């Protein structure tokens, strides 16, 4: 049973990932990414990380993908990109070589570790069963990891403030001559 679930979700994850990088339309890429994220959520359930599975669906498939789709529609960049044009010659073969070599390196490590990964079993931070997962995770987050959680709150605040600052229109240009020059280039490109 576990084998079947793993194989199906692995197929879902990998086909979604390939869909992301081969879709011409960014909206299709976003939808394929939802497929991958759901597959990962299924794997989390399989590994008895039930809280993370829920968070994966809510935060990733919910919030982050919605953000992507919002930006795609807001900018009107839903035009298809011509994948046949290769901007820098030799970029694609090189990219495939780099991707394949990263996979090869990890595969070598996995093959060398014959009996699977080794390591000490947890002594003071044991994993409970699936029903207890959320409670144990919450207790750890708000006791031993509480400083990290506070830093996380700070990080999110900075991110929100930064996003607001970045997306407000500047009321007056900081350097007027530079701004004029940039406006000219924009107009030139609009005419193309």
């Amino acid at each position: 049973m576990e084998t079947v679930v793993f194989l199906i979700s692995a197929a879902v994850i990998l086909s979604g990932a390939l869909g992301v990088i081969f879709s011409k339309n960014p909206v299709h890429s976003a939808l394929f990414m939802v497929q991958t994220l759901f597959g990962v959520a299924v794997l989390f359930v399989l590994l008895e990380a039930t809280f993370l599975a829920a968070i994966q669906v809510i935060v990733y498939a919910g919030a982050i993908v919605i953000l992507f789709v919002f930006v795609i529609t807001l900018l009107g960049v839903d035009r298809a990109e011509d994948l046949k044009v290769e901007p820098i010659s030799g970029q694609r073969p090189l990219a495939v070589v780099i991707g394949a070599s990263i996979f090869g390196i990890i595969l070598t490590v996995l093959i060398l570790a014959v009996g699977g990964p080794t390591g000490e079993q947890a002594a003071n931070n044991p994993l409970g069963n699936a029903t207890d997962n959320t409670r144990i995770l919450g207790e750890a987050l708000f006791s031993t990891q509480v400083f990290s959680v506070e830093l996380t709150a700070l990080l999110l605040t900075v991110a929100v403030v930064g996003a607001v600052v970045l997306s407000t229109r500047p009321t007056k240009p900081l350097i007027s001559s530079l701004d004029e020059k940039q406006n000219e280039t924009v107009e030139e490109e609009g005419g193309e």
Partner: protein
Amino acid sequence: MIITTTWYLLLAAILFSIGTTGLLVRRNPLIMFMCIELMLNAVNITFVSIGSHLNDLGGQLAVFFVLVVAAAEVVIGLALVVAIMRRRSRTNADDLKILGG
């Protein structure tokens, strides 16, 4: 066939490689961000499977923080894309060579 931790690690390796390749091949910044998300998800699978293998909660705690950092990264990254798009009509990673001066 019994699914061991090695299978999860293999799947994560394949997913990470696909993400890397996509990041290097595609030029649309939005799709490059999606590829980064794929790579982060591959790492998350690794964390959770190793944590499950060693009966350790640390893996899941790490994934929790990775999720938060990923959310913050996407927010800032997309705000940057919007800010750049406001000045230039096309988004393309190669167009940003103007930053070179």
